């Protein structure tokens, strides 16, 4: 989950890294007040999650509190990347001598975090790495040994930085490493880290992302920052259909009906598990099919959960039929899923044989499952029919009916 800049700055501040005396607000009049308090030129920054704020007109330099208020008013209404800002940041305009970069990210191949440092900040670090590689230092660090000051010192010195700047930067870089680890971040970046005329350093911008799986152990921090439990901050907001999908999953702890994602086609998909769902979705599209949704059944769902998911998909406007397909199952029961999807059809007043384009789930309890499917006349396939072929038949069936 990505943090807004104003939240990330707060996290940086709590870690003991100097930040500017910024203020966050959703009210233009308050922006003026903050500017007055700061006393001097300010920068008004849109608080959206997407990049390219400057280009889109979401970053403005204000000389007076009145200008701060006017710019805030405009920027609060300005959509960037399809989103309105959460608010605006009012930042003192800093007199910066030099801009640096410091960031931590996971290296999945080395399986350790890596600290990246450069005395060339303010621009895209990938660009610096390409054009001036000797100015970008990288250092992987241990997951089980506490991060040591010497490690910060080494990575900074490797880029040629020395003197008092080196000594001032070491504690900042150390605190950034600790912040990354302690908060289960997947990305913690300060760019630019500004050096002021008096030689001190201050974080002028911060970009942080916390691992979703770890949010549960940072409830207090998230609550204090005002991040809602339900906020996922995905590329787009969850639709009512998707929210309903989450409710089906939440109502019953037995098994998983997950990752329900809305599309706009006519073929409803009740599919699983993770890898199977991806494969089936690819296959449906490859055969010219038009999925109404994506989802992932997993674990050992109850009849009730399977029924709830199937009903949700069946009732989606535009859905003609559903295809019920999974890779070979070990702990999901074929007969239980069969009961669930047939029950969904019957309770909605449909004939299962007509509404279910194909049922392809081989594996645990399949003999029992096939008995149920036969009783209701549902077209089913065993493991001798591949995922790809099952998807093809589903698309053919729905095309024939159209």
């Amino acid at each position, binding site marked *: 989950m990505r943090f807004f800049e104003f939240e990330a700055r707060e996290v940086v501040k709590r870690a003991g890294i100097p930040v500017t005396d910024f203020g966050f607000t959703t009210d233009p009049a308050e922006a003026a007040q903050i500017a007055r308090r700061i006393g001097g030129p300010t920068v008004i920054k849109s608080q959206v999650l997407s990049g390219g704020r400057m280009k889109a007109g979401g970053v403005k330099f204000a000389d007076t509190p009145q200008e701060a208020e006017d710019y805030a008013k405009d920027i609060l209404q300005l959509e960037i990347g399809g989103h309105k800002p959460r608010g605006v940041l009012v930042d003192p305009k800093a007199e910066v001598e030099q801009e640096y970069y410091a960031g931590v990210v996971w290296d*999945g191949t080395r399986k350790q975090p890596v600290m990246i440092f450069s005395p060339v900040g303010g621009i895209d670090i990938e660009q610096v790495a390409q054009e001036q590689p000797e100015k970008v230092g990288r250092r992987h660090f241990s997951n089980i040994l506490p991060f040591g000051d010497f490690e910060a010192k080494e990575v900074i010195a490797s880029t040629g930085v020395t003197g008092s700047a080196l000594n001032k930067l070491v504690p900042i870089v150390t605190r950034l490493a600790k912040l990354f680890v302690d908060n289960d971040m997947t990305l913690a970046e300060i760019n630019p880290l500004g050096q002021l005329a008096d030689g001190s350093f201050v974080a002028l911008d911060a970009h942080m992302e916390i691992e979703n799986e770890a949010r549960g152990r940072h409830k207090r921090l998230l609550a204090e920052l005002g991040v809602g439990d339900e906020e996922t901050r995905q590329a787009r907001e969850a639709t009512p259909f998707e929210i309903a999908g989450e409710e089906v999953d939440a109502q019953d702890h037995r098994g998983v009906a997950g990752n329900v994602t809305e599309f706009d086609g006519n073929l409803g998909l009740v599919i699983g598990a*993770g*890898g199977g769902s991806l494969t089936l979705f690819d296959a449906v599209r490859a055969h010219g099919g038009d999925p109404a949704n994506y989802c992932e059944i997993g674990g050992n769902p109850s009849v009730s959960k399977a029924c709830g998911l199937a009903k949700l998909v069946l009732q989606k406007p535009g859905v003609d039929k559903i295809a019920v397909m999974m890779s070979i*199952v070990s702990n999901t029961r074929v007969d239980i899923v069969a009961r669930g999807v047939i029950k969904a059809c019957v309770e909605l007043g449909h004939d299962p044989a007509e509404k279910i384009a194909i049922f392809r789930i081989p594996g645990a309890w399949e003999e029992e499952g096939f008995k149920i499917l036969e009783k209701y006349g549902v077209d089913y396939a065993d493991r001798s029919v591949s995922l790809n072929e099952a998807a093809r038949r589903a698309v053919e069936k729905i095309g024939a009916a159209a």
Partner: protein
Amino acid sequence: MSILIDADTAFIVQGITGREAVNLTRECLDYGEGAKVVGGVTPGRLGREVHGVPVFDTVAQAVEHNGGPIDGSVVTVPPAFTKDAVFEAIENGVKLIVIVTERIPRRDVAQMVELANLRSARIIGPNCLGIIVPDVIKMGGIGGPAKNAAQAYRPGPIGVISRSGGMTTEMSSTLSAAGLGQSTAVSIGGDAIIGSTYAELMPLFEADEQTEGIVIYTEPGGRMEAELSRWVTENDSRLPIVAFMAGRFMDEMPGMSFGHAGTIVEGKEDTAGEKIARLAQAGIAVAERIEDIPTMIEEKIAGRAASGAAR
């Protein structure tokens, strides 16, 4: 033969009294030659039994009861406690740890992996279904009940490595139906950081005489395929590889999260298309459909044999 485990592998189940663990213990005891599940660990339940397997409070007690070091552990302990359980296993001399648990924070996984490295232990997973040597032994829930696993998995020359548990079985079943059994199938897990990647398992398969070819399942997200391509190129491997990649549609939908936790496509990593190109450059064929895999791997194996005979 096989990699990682064989008929003599003795292991414990940590979290054995949990619902999933009770099931998989039964399955492992029933499958193949019957696994040597020498104990289970659930703190507070010393003295109980699960399907005849004695339960202990600590791994140390299990080791003592065993009269010596225990080869492996299957860990099903909930995410908040997994790291501690895995550290306990490693520090008590367990060398192969299969972590079934999902949704473990990355930092914890990284710590477990680093400690394992320091102690020359190996982790498979997390968020995985384990390892199976067809007709011999399984370690984890892979393949399900013994009867189901016996249907899908047959002994043979193909090493299978998969990021998805279910797809390990689907691909193996397809291979078995085509007469191409598996030497060992490994479900390596779907998270961003895992104990053993494709490249890290390749040397083990390379050294296994029974293995003549490799089939992998992969998805967008992560850099494991790049790592594998590098390994293959640098090591002049004797083993031909066929890959199946799911989730190609994600190239058209950046920023959304599908599939496993590790499958988030962002700008800087390879797209599915780029991954396929990279694999192809390393001589790894990418199948369009799972049903194409048997013919493809068979042809590659025959090709290698022919060029080997020609020397």
